[in-house]
């Protein structure tokens, strides 16, 4: 017997189910995480703030999922409404709130270098222009950024390939990304 194909749940369904089915909220997160991180990163130009704001918005969405009314709009619009509020509040107060996360008893988000790099590489996702700029980097930085960000290789492996220490690779990646960002800003 062939399995009966089922339509993927709508965003609104996932949100409604999240009160009793935690994994439904996980799926909801999967759908919007990247979009939200990019939204905040482009607004703040800071990876740590983008991560913090993303965490707070999803926590607020989880806490308020029961109050979501699908007759008043899509879940995506609702989520980005929270995001815009959170961003405005952050500019006003000069810091990111963690009220929703505390209410849910969530641990503070510990950011690793890898997470920060991944967020900072958002600029590179724009494709052609960034890749052209990447080719213009000094060779040591280009190889490090190419290996780490584009090919997603780990530091130990890169250090071995590039015949230097891991901390040198980290430095080159960091400098390369900084240069790329500055050049992208100028190119705009």
């Amino acid at each position: 017997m062939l399995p009966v194909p089922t339509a993927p749940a709508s965003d609104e369904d996932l949100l409604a189910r999240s009160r009793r089915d935690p994994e439904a909220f996980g799926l909801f997160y999967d759908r919007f995480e990247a979009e939200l991180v990019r939204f905040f990163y482009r607004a703040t130009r800071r990876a740590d703030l983008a991560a913090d704001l993303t965490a707070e918005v999803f926590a607020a969405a989880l806490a308020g999922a029961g109050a979501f009314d699908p007759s008043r709009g899509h879940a995506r619009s609702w989520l980005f409404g929270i995001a815009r509020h959170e961003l405005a509040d952050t500019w006003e107060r000069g810091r990111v709130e963690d009220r929703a996360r505390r209410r849910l008893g969530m641990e503070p988000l510990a950011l690793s270098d890898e997470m920060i790099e991944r967020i900072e590489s958002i600029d590179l996702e724009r494709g052609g222009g960034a890749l052209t700029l990447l080719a213009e980097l000094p060779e040591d930085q280009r190889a490090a950024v190419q290996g780490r960000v584009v090919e997603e290789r780990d530091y130990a492996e890169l250090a071995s390939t590039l015949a230097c220490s891991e901390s040198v690779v980290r430095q080159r990646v960091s400098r390369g990304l900084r240069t790329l960002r500055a050049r992208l800003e100028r190119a705009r």
Partner: protein
Amino acid sequence: MTYLPELRDSLVGAAERQAAGAGAEPARRRPRRRPRPFGAFALMAASVLAIVVAGAVLVLVRHAGSVPQAGTRPTPTRAEVVAAAESLLGRFQPPAGAVASEANPAPGSQIGGPADKIADRYSLDLHRFYRVPGTPEQVIDAISRQPPPDLQSQSGEAEGTAGSSTGRRTQSRVVFQAATFNLTRTNGIDRQLTFEAVVLPGGGSALRVDAQAGYGSIPMPHGPEPAVTAPLPPSVASPGHTIAITQLASRKRALRFLNALPSVKQPTAPGCRVVAPANRIVLGATTVLITPGCPQITVETRGAVEYKTWRYAGTLRPNERLKLLPLLTGEATRSSGRARP
């Protein structure tokens, strides 16, 4: 691509807790059985009786002063806490050849002076100094091999090695070693034994033993300001250094630790206006700035904008301070360099 996989896990965990809470609600909302006519009369009589009894109890309580609530133990008195700390110190058997010392045999070293430990209205710290033969590693190792009988857990470990933290190494020689034992809570008193050993110039080691006992409730972020400000750990008291914590697990621990500290509302605490050389602790994208004499830890991100500030104050529990110590002295690789003003 997932940018923040840990956040997903954390949110799903929170959703699980929320779902569990929601599942419990219907049970609490079970409709009450309608009482029968005689039941209603009995219920009314019982209510009147309950009010009378409650009133009598209230009067008695007011006359008696503070009466502990049923099922809870009153906050321990300071005398009980002193007794607990003294008992801890008294039970400690120093290693063979140890000679008690009135003062710190290694003044100015990581083990600090008598006033370098937290002793505020929420905790008490009693200590002793010894001169001990052997290296700090050997001393702490010997102590760790015979843990206290009521050991609950060990903390202050830098890399999870059993028994002790990894000391700061100079030319592959351990010059400082520490171990902390959390003991079972007794009569509402949290107890902790800490051992710190530092190498002595003439040979042997100086050992400091701290018996710490904590009691009472500790006000957290929005509570009253503590009366006493905790000093910085001696290991970070010398200014002008950058400490880089390179391991991811350590960064996470340090960030969690710093995030758990009460935040400061005002941007600058009194006493921090004078620009002094400071210690910078680099935690990935985050830089922590510790200025000696200033009760505030500043957390910057990407070295540019001050993102959050935190107070490093007397609200710290003894074990919180000790958690930071190995992070700063144990795994941290220290490099010289003046802090930016």
